[in-house]
């Protein structure tokens, strides 16, 4: 927790990742309006997909920073040699990026609603649930891969290349559920399978990350 608070505080001071990622999200939202007719009625049908692509692209900038933040002055070494277990360092970082990602999403949502004339608050409970579950998936896998790639040349390139295809199941579920929410259709029956998938994804990858994080941090 102390680590999460530290990360959020230094991010709040510099706002490097937040500004870059927030601006990037809006740029992508703008670009998509040229890819298809933003005024058509069908926007609601692919709105879920669009929204999650924006969150994923912008999110990569955030998770990329979580461990890169420790690089100047070799702070990561000090954290690892401290009595804090690797899993706790990792979870602290996951929480910090989770909070930042949710912030970016909350900034993007109204912009998305305005640009594409979409009412997105029809089912706030479901929307919040999907946001939280998928953002957690992105934070966990993204933070672990951020730790993996932190010392590499080409870090900025490697991270999204590894991250996106592996997040695909969570992304599929998020897109499907978000589309339902945007179209104001009930999340029930067969569609619940996507919710289960998302929860399963979170549980599996959180436990896998916690089990393997020491191999990643202690080299």
């Amino acid at each position, binding site marked *: 927790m102390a680590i999460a608070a530290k990360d959020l505080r230094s991010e709040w001071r510099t706002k490097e990742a937040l500004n870059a990622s927030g601006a990037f999200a809006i740029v992508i939202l703008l670009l998509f309006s040229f890819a298809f007719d933003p005024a058509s009625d069908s926007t609601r049908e692919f709105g879920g997909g669009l929204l999650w692509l924006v969150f994923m692209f912008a999110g990569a900038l955030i998770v990329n920073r979580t461990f890169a933040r420790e690089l100047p002055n070799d702070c990561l070494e000090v954290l690892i040699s401290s009595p804090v277990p690797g899993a706790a360092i990792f979870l602290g970082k996951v929480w910090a990026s989770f909070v930042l990602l949710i912030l970016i999403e909350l900034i993007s949502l109204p912009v998305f609603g305005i640009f594409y004339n979409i009412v997105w608050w029809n089912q706030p409970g479901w929307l919040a649930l999907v946001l939280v579950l998928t953002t957690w998936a992105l934070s966990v896998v993204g933070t672990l891969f951020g730790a993996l790639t932190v010392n590499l040349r080409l870090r900025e390139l490697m991270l999204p290349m590894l991250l996106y295809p592996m997040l695909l199941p969570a992304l599929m579920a998020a897109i499907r559920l978000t589309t339902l929410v945007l179209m104001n259709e009930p999340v029930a029956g067969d569609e619940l399978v996507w919710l289960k998938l998302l929860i399963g994804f979170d549980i599996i990858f959180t436990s896998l990350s916690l089990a393997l994080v020491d191999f990643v941090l*202690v080299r």
Partner: protein
Amino acid sequence: MSAVSVENVWKYFGDFPALREVNFTLESGNCLALLGRNGAGKTTLLRILAGLSSASTGAVKLPDRRRAAYLGHNIGIYDELSAEENLRLFAQLYELPDANKTAAKWLERVNLLHVAESPVREFSRGMRQRLALARVFQHEPEMLLLDEPFTSLDDRAIALLQDLMREAKARGATIVLSTHQLKEALELASDVVLLRRGQISYRGPRTDAMVHDPSAIYRDYGGEA
């Protein structure tokens, strides 16, 4: 009772053995100077002791990590945080009972109380180094792991480090330091380990003869300075 024991440690990078069959123990309260040329394995060994890296085979025994401190080649301080926030953060991580008080005490000790609230980014090199020393010593570690501490510090910080190390020794702390600065290290040390190509080529107590003629150890046991 020995504070540090390193038993038959090997460390491979690929097929290259960076450490080969390293064995030694260090009594509690003693100071070990880890000598050797660049690439002899000093940093690798210290990183294993600090828990940053794991030995390929063999075992390392150390006191509780809460009572240990590590100073690497870099200062390990966050630029975006203030001096006080840095110290408070590490005090929390080391589970000190009163992080605020400890941080304030150490800021005074390293002469940074007047800039406690300023972000470290604005500090001069020497100020950052002193803050790093406060970070290392504030939880009164029983075990100090210092990697080339004299090379990266300026004169004032070196004087401070020497004071702090003397104090630590006085309260019975165990010290392992790797260094090129033979003279300073040998004056402080009670034990010497000389590494050559990842192997120990000399291990034993420091003798007075070594202090008088520091480079003799390289001549006698291989690996020139």
